[in-house]
């Protein structure tokens, strides 16, 4: 019998469970295969919604559903924290002492925020005037703080990269501008955006566009700012090179790391606990029968639900290849597709991969759209809100989204200048040997 174990029942793990259940329906029913999904809790959070909670657009309870109903009936669901993976023994150790043997393991345990890793951040002022919005608790508490904010300096600070949904901090800045304008106190609020990046975003064309939007909305940008510590009492951020940014209200995007068990699993992860993963096959470096997907990997793609979805289309094929003793496909190209909420009921849409930066054009149909790439429109905003339904009803069940394939398409895009090709990952050239040996 083939035993498949999936660690994590968030976006990526749930999509994979549903794809595997569909693909191997007969084997699962006939006893030729078993599928087990593990998660530490029973709350599946619609994470794109967290951005809107602080502004009162969504209530936190609208975003949370129990995990079991989102998973296929053919899967066994185990709710227990994971202690570690012993790859040489093909065993998952759970915290309660149980072990799960596997023939094929999929790690989909996402990422978590680590505010305690920055000196002073969880000290005096934490959840009083310093908040994150990447957790249900943080975004809920921040909603109250924003409602009660009567003016002063609001600072949005990205502590380090990589982060989940890299555009969310910018969206937060844009929505703050909208929110305080609606409340009639925009002139009493200074909004500042402190980032370790050289610009608003790392991809050149997008960076220019987003930097322009920040300026237009009167948001100050502090770049190359590497947060060393936070002084909650005095209300200031201090960078490693000793620059200071004062705040009355801090919205922090803390350092991100992988799940804690990755660090306890010999050889599985990098120094932040992200699973070392081949960027095109999604096979883990640790062992040929381990794969990783979504935010849990160290591949240089966005940590975003759209990426998990595009990866799932490649991963299901590679799981079939692996179980059939065939070579893996190098099918994943880093494709990401993100709405960027810009306030006042408008949004931008960007579409890019490892090699090609976001470009203007129409999406998903050339010339027709209906959505516009790299342009603020109301229909993009409606697309973003409609995505909540798409998430629960199409994305998690692992259905292909019509017209949008796993590989990025150049149709409908304008390239006003030569497409910038960057060597996104030296591994591509440097490790051609691994991962063909399945």
């Amino acid at each position, binding site marked *: 019998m083939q035993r498949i174990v999936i660690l994590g029942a968030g976006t990526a793990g749930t999509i994979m469970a549903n794809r595997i259940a569909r693909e191997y329906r007969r084997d699962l029913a006939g006893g030729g295969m078993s599928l087990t999904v593990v998660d530490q809790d029973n709350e599946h959070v619609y994470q794109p919604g967290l951005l809107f909670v602080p502004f009162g657009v969504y209530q936190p309870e609208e975003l949370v559903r129990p995990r079991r109903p989102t998973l296929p009936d053919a899967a066994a669901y185990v709710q227990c924290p994971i202690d570690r993976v012993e790859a040489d023994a093909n065993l998952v150790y759970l915290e309660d002492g149980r072990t799960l043997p596997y023939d094929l393991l999929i790690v989909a345990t996402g990422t978590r925020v680590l505010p305690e890793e920055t000196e002073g951040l969880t000290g005096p002022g934490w959840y009083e005037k310093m908040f994150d919005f990447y957790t249900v608790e943080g975004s809920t508490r921040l909603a109250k703080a924003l409602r009660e904010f009567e003016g002063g300096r609001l600072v949005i600070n990205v502590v380090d990269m*990589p982060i989940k949904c890299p555009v969310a901090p910018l969206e937060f800045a844009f929505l703050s501008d909208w929110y305080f304008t609606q409340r009639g106190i925009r002139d009493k609020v200074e909004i500042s955006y402190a980032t370790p*990046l050289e610009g608003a975003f*790392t991809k050149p064309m997008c960076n220019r566009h987003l930097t322009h939007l920040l300026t237009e909305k009167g948001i100050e940008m502090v770049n*190359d700012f*590497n947060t060393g510590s936070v002084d909650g009492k005095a209300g200031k951020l201090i960078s490693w090179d000793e620059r200071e940014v004062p705040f009355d209200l801090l919205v922090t995007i803390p350092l991100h790391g992988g799940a804690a068990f990755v660090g306890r699993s010999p050889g599985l992860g990098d120094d932040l606990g992200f699973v070392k993963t081949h960027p095109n096959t999604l096979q883990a470096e640790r062992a040929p029968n381990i794969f990783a997907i979504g935010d849990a990997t160290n591949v240089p*793609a*966005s940590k975003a639900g759209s990426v998990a979805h595009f990866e799932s289309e490649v991963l299901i094929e590679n799981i079939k290849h692996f179980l059939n003793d065939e070579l893996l496909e190098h099918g994943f190209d880093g494709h990401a597709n993100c709405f960027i909420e810009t306030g006042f009921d408008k949004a931008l849409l960007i579409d890019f991969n490892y090699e090609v930066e976001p470009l203007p054009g129409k999406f998903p149909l050339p010339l027709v759209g209906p959505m516009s790439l790299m342009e603020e429109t109301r229909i993009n905003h409606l697309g973003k809100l409609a995505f909540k339904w798409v998430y629960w009803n199409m994305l998690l069940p692992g259905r292909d989204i019509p017209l949008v394939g796993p590989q990025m398409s150049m149709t409908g895009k304008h390239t006003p200048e030569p497409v910038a090709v*960057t060597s996104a*990952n030296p591994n591509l050239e440097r490790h051609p040997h691994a991962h063909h040996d399945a």
Partner: protein
Amino acid sequence: MPTMTLNDAVLELDAEGFLADANQWNEGVAEAIARENGIPVLTEDHWKVIRYMRDTWFASGQAPTIRSLGKESGVDVKTLYKLFPKGPAKLAAKIAGIPKPHGCI
């Protein structure tokens, strides 16, 4: 492609001044790149970091992050910012002759 010339050797650089081929690097190249980036003299602490950058890159194909530098290179983060002002991970990579660490998106 931009180049730099050092003792009659022509070295290829990328658009941001990173060495195109890490194997063209030597200590003289490191000193030249450092001078161009406002570091007149490389101290023993600089070399500790530079060697750690190269070892990590050749072993793993990844440039180390500032956090792993602070933990494992033998030089703490605050000192790293003094040695390589502004962006230590980036500047140390440049001087070590390895590709620019990619900003993760």
